[in-house]
């Protein structure tokens, strides 16, 4: 009897593993690369495999994760958003400027700043989308223009200075760790990812995002207006830049016009490593989260390993490419799994 029961639970266990494997492969094949990296650094780098270190990695990944979540939407409809880095900079200085306004109570300041930061992101993001759609322009060049404009605006707004002195409740919230394991900053990032995942998976809007990325003309012929959804998608990307700006402020407590330089490439890298197709229509936000983690684990792991500063970019570049190469075999692996 007992033997039989064991076999059954064994079978169940095998099935569970199988299912998890399958789902993780489908949602984020590149998770394997992440696991490999984790194993490698845990073995090789001192202090890597400690809870505190993982906590720290979580916090460090947060900004990129939030940016990359919005970027996933944009890439899914077949666009790209190069402006998120400078939008983030603009939003940090707008947010910080409001927060240190002496006429406002700390709480007023925090609420107002959050709305302003996200609002600025949302509006400029929507503007990106609107320009792309109004004149049928490639988002690459439109958002490249916005990159410059927003970065100039950030300088003007901040008068080129780093803004400090944020209200204490805000700073405290940034340092908060829920239940000893979940830093508030990471919590925000996870909430953003989950909302994004839910929207893409279960809402009608999500279906439109995939459909437009697959065949925009077909969507139009089905009687819909892709333009609207595409503008919305860029607005979302702007919004996440605004949220990422708040995360930046929570994490570093300073607003700066030079925050976020080059973040757009990092975010795009996370999205693509996460398996989302640059030509649109295929991908997942969970993959994006994994992609962002890979990049951060790599960077932190290399430092703990004591890698040379000059060698670091070489390794990071190589691993980015290796991760997507590995991911390109996913189809095959998945096929083998399903065939069984």
């Amino acid at each position, binding site marked *: 009897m007992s033997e039989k029961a064991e076999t059954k639970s064994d079978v169940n266990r095998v099935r569970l593993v199988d299912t998890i494997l399958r789902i993780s492969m489908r949602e984020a094949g590149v998770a394997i690369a992440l696991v490999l990296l984790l194993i490698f650094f845990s073995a090789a780098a*001192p*202090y890597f495999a*400690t809870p*505190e*270190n993982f906590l*720290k990695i979580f*916090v*460090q990944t947060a*900004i990129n994760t939030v940016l990359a979540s919005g970027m996933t939407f944009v890439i899914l409809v077949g666009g790209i958003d190069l402006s998120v880095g400078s939008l983030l900079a603009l939003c940090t200085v707008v947010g910080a400027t409001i927060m240190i306004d002496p006429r406002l109570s700390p709480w007023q300041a925090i609420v107002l700043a959050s709305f302003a930061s996200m609002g600025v992101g949302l509006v400029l993001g929507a503007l990106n989308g609107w320009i792309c759609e109004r004149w049928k322009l490639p988002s690459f060049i439109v958002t490249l223009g916005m990159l410059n404009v927003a970065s100039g605006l950030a*300088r003007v707004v901040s*008068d*080129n*200075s*780093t*803004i*400090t*002195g944020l209200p204490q409740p805000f700073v405290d919230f940034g*340092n908060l760790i829920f239940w000893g394991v979940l830093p508030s900053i990471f919590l925000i990032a996870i909430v953003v990812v989950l909302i994004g995942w839910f929207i893409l998976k279960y809402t009608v809007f999500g279906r439109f995002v995939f459909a437009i990325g697959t065949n925009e003309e077909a969507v139009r012929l089905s009687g819909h207006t892709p333009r609207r959804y595409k503008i919305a998608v860029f607005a979302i990307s702007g919004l996440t830049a605004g949220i990422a700006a708040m995360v*930046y402020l929570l*994490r*570093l*407590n*300073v607003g*700066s*016009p*030079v*925050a976020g*330089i080059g973040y757009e490439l990092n975010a795009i890298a996370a999205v693509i490593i996460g398996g989302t197709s640059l030509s649109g229509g295929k991908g997942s936000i969970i993959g994006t989260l994994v992609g962002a983690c890979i990049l951060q684990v790599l*960077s*932190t792991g290399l*430092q*703990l390993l*004591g890698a040379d*500063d*000059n060698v670091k970019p070489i390794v990071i570049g190589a691993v980015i490419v290796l991760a997507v190469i590995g991911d390109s075999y996913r189809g095959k692996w998945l096929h083998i799994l399903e065939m069984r």
Partner: protein
Amino acid sequence: ADKPKVGLIMKSLSNEFFKQMKAGADDYAAKNADKFDFKAVGMKDERDFASQVDAVENFVTQKYDIIVVAPADSKAMVTPLAKAVKAGVKVINIDVALDEDAKKAAGVDLAFFGPDNREGAKLAGDALAKDLGKGGKVVVLEGNPEADNAKERAKGFADSIKAGGLQLLDSKTAHWETEEANTVMTNFLTKYHDIQGVMAANDSMVLGVVKALDAAGLSGKIKVVGFDNIPAVQPLIKDGKVLATVEQYGAQMAAMGIDYGLREMKGEKFTGWVKTDIKLVTK
């Protein structure tokens, strides 16, 4: 009408040091509006010295009489500046010294008006060494590895580590950036549990370092020194979260550069290194 035209070329204006420099220069120019016309330009990315070269060329096109320049690269800027000199422009080198060999090769002899970055860093490092005492364990956050002032400051830190008998645990670049400094410092804290002091090559990185220490509940316990004395670190020094930083009087430096330029136009000649003030800023 025949007022001399003075152009000031800086690095990135979003670097607070240059922002102060510009403010000082604008101020000086406004006070002396009858003596000269003034224009200042910065760059988008301070590593992109090609755009600084463009700026030099554009000033020559506009027939400026004096170019005051804080070179983004001590070697690369020599050739275009030598060309400007040959075109009859008075060139004043401030902030970062042009490379001696390169100057010789280009056949120009330009004086340098600027601070001693190495000495400045040593001032800060020494303050830390004094505070920690012999055997204190420190980490260093460097600037852009190819930048001349970053190299000088790294040398200055190394000098004081040696002189003060400190123990260097690790040294990494955070590319002058707040966020990267925060990440690098956080990782240092993971890797080394006995850090006592931090030397950061500029104050933007200090902001990231202090935040990392705050998050770990170590601020004030681990001593931090920086460089530049930007407004944002001044409260941190007051709070004791930062031990010291170095003031290099950017505002005066540019004004002085302009002044030296005007004097050269009148026929004075300067050579060698005219050192400008540096000062250790503590609580």
